[in-house]
């Protein structure tokens, strides 16, 4: 511990005491790990919910022992009721989209690494940062409370369309206090996310080290920065939407509820509201949200790929500009979730064009990634395998989007398993692969011990093959017309599809089981992992210039000075085939 007079002014004093160090910490690194832990908890819950759902779809009459303890009304005798299936579905989507996909790639890794990668000693507003995590945590608790209350969680899906979500208890089980808790939780989540986004932006703009121009920032930093710009504006729309929804439910207003509705034999006392208004507000947030889910993973994967390939991408700038255009276009396409919603059909065409246009930057990025692999010397590790797997998954998920972007094809595929396959491949798999890749890559830096490579690669193979087995068949089901959000398949045409459903369920359970390898690896490596050196991957960016794990103020007394762009690989450097960003030796010509 240095004496106070020798230290330059810091953002905050060194933390002392357990609470300040590990609970209410102002350190972006601790906050990043807290977000990661929350994301991990949420993904375990979300995955368990998906197992219950898949199990119920193919073995609806088989008892799941112990499930009645979770919900006496929802799963009497261990058999899931139709309404409880919808509750599981709603909570699965809500947990995964908000608490996993917004938390892990963005809030967790971004919080940890953005300040380090730009040479700052912490975020611009550490107190706001701490508040943003704990706000998100409170939102999580409020949401999970819905499992505990007698009426159970809501049944309106993570999209909570009005009037089903707006009329209150009459709409069905879980639609009383369950739905209220959902609305309150998401509103609180919005506030937490907005605080976080604000921090990311101010930090990136103002706390970069000397020599760290915007274009010298690593690609993942750019991804976090662009994502936070999107999040800043997207969550600012969801919060008003939730407020208006809560008012319709509790204060008798009619923002979303028209007149003359008879729900559960009761004439609803509202009038004049517009259900489509909810959809517009929700999807105006919802579409940028899915780019919030994927962009950080694109950045992380690019970053890891370059390091693994030992050569820079064909153009990092093109990747960055592509991410910016995706971010920009993401605001114009929300209506593609509403092609057959009853909105003006001419609008559907207007939304279709920018939706199809997003294919262009997405294709550019894919071609840059693929083209960069040419002539490389890829080091195969768990991290690089997941990064390569990301490219495969992103292609698969993106290609199915191409169908859904066309309104006339959407007539046939809307609300079928085709849509479910599409968004699971891009969000549920590709984005998560980015998180896995980041974890294997950065775990050593974050904890001081490396993850086990053999287990990591085994985890990769099982997950890569497993997720294809689960989600590729969803597209086939959708083409036949298998409808989504059904708790059972009782249509004439779904009978012949049950063998495929069984295959998917078994694949899901197996792939889920494989994730225990990852969790075991996370815990085991914390205690028994090989000690991590400062730069185990021979990386060039600033996180590899500090100890593993870094000290509380990242760079100690140093204020790094940046001399190079972030990806000087395949060059003759003093330490090997790379030159670090803060090394004064000359760049490759």
């Amino acid at each position, binding site marked *: 511990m240095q004496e106070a007079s020798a230290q330059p002014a810091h953002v905050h004093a060194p933390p002392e005491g357990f609470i300040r160090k590990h609970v209410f910490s102002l350190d972006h690194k601790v906050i990043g790990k807290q977000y990661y832990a929350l994301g991990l908890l949420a993904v375990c819950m979300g995955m368990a919910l998906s197992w219950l759902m898949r199990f119920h779809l193919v073995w609806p009459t088989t008892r799941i022992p112990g499930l009645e303890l979770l919900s006496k009304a929802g799963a009497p005798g261990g058999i899931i009721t139709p309404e409880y299936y919808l509750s599981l579905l709603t909570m699965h989507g809500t947990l995964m989209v908000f608490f996993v996909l917004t938390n892990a790639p963005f809030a967790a890794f971004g919080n940890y690494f953005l300040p380090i990668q730009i040479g700052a000693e912490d975020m611009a507003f550490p107190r706001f940062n701490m508040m943003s995590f704990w706000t998100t945590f409170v939102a999580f608790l409020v949401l999970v409370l819905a499992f505990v209350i007698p009426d159970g969680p809501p049944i309106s899906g993570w999209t909570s369309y009005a009037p089903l979500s707006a009329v209150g208890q009459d709409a069905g089980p879980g639609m009383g206090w369950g739905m209220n808790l959902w609305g309150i939780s998401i509103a609180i989540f919005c506030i937490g996310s907005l605080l976080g986004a604000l921090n990311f932006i*101010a930090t990136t703009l103002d706390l970069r080290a000397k020599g760290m121009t915007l274009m010298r920032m690593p690609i993942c930093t750019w991804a976090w920065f662009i994502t936070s710009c999107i999040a800043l504006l997207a969550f*600012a729309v969801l919060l*008003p939407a939730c407020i208006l929804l809560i*008012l319709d439910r509790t204060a008798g207003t009619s923002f979303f509820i028209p007149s003359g509705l008879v729900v559960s034999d009761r004439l609803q006392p509202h009038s004049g*509201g517009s259900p489509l208004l909810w959809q517009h507000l929700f999807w105006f947030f919802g579409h940028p949200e899915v780019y919030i889910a994927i962009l950080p993973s694109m950045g992380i994967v690019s970053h890891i790929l370059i390091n693994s390939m030992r050569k820079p991408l064909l153009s990092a700038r093109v990747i960055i500009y592509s991410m910016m255009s995706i971010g920009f276009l993401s605001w114009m396409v929300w209506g593609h979730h509403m092609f057959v919603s009853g909105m003006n059909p001419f609008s559907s065409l207007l939304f279709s064009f920018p939706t199809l246009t997003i294919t262009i930057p997405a294709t550019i990025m894919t071609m840059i990634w693929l083209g960069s692999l040419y002539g490389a010397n890829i080091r195969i590790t768990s991290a690089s395998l997941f990064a390569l797997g990301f490219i495969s998954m992103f292609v698969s998920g993106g290609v199915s989007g191409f169908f859904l972007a066309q309104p006339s094809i959407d007539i046939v595929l809307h609300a079928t398993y085709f849509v479910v396959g599409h968004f699971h491949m891009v969000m549920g798999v590709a984005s998560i692969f980015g998180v896995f890749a980041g974890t294997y890559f950065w775990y050593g830096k974050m904890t001081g011990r490396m993850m086990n490579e053999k287990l990591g690669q085994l985890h990769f193979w099982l997950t890569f093959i497993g997720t294809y087995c689960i989600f590729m068949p969803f597209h086939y089901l959708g083409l036949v017309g298998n409808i989504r959000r059904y708790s059972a398949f009782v249509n004439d045409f779904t009978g012949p599809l049950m063998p495929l459903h069984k295959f998917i369920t078994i694949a899901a359970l197996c792939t889920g089981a494989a994730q225990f390898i990852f969790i075991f690896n996370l815990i085991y490596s914390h205690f028994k992992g090989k000690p991590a050196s400062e730069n185990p991957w021979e990386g060039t960016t600033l996180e590899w210039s500090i100890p593993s794990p870094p000290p509380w103020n990242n760079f100690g*007394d140093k204020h790094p000075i940046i001399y190079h762009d972030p990806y000087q690989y395949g060059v003759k450097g003093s330490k090997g085939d790379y030159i670090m960003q803060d090394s004064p030796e000359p760049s490759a010509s």
Partner: protein
Amino acid sequence: MSSATYPSVRVAASAKVRSAHAEASRSGIWVGICTITMSFMAFISALYVRQGSSTDWTHIVLPRILYFNTLALLVSSVALELSRRALAPVHGSELDRGAVRRGLGCLTATLALGLFFVAGQYEAWRQLAAQGLYLATNANSSFYYVLTAMHGLHLLAGIGALLLVISRLVVAGNRFRRSTFEATAIYWHFMGVLWLYLLLVLRTKL
């Protein structure tokens, strides 16, 4: 760099860190203003769509006190600017006691006028309720209450910030944290501009 560096370098480093954070405060407040603007845009778009989706749009007469409230808020911004002038940094030396006193006085006026605004908004609510217009009475009244409540909540946050700045000024005198003061000022002016815009919407649409 070991801890045995030269004092001038250490001071320079710490000054750099401090100025970077002043910059960050300014960026932060503008970023915050962007997000708040976006959320009000969402509310107002909802207003437009709601108006168009049904034939039940009526008309409410805005309570006259609203205009006095507006005047109070605008004058409070003037007082805040006067405070800023008084507390403007003097090159190379510290502020004298007189400047601090003047700045404090103007800030207190800002705070008082801000509180007057909030009280006046509450009174306007009471007057509407007296006419039988409550939150759920009709679409127009719903938006009136929601928009004024949202603005009021954000203004209360601004009042909180003013209180913080005032207390710091009282305690620390001329060594108060300037960046917080600047950010609060920008925020407060924004609340005024936002209110003017909302008033226009309330007048023309409700």
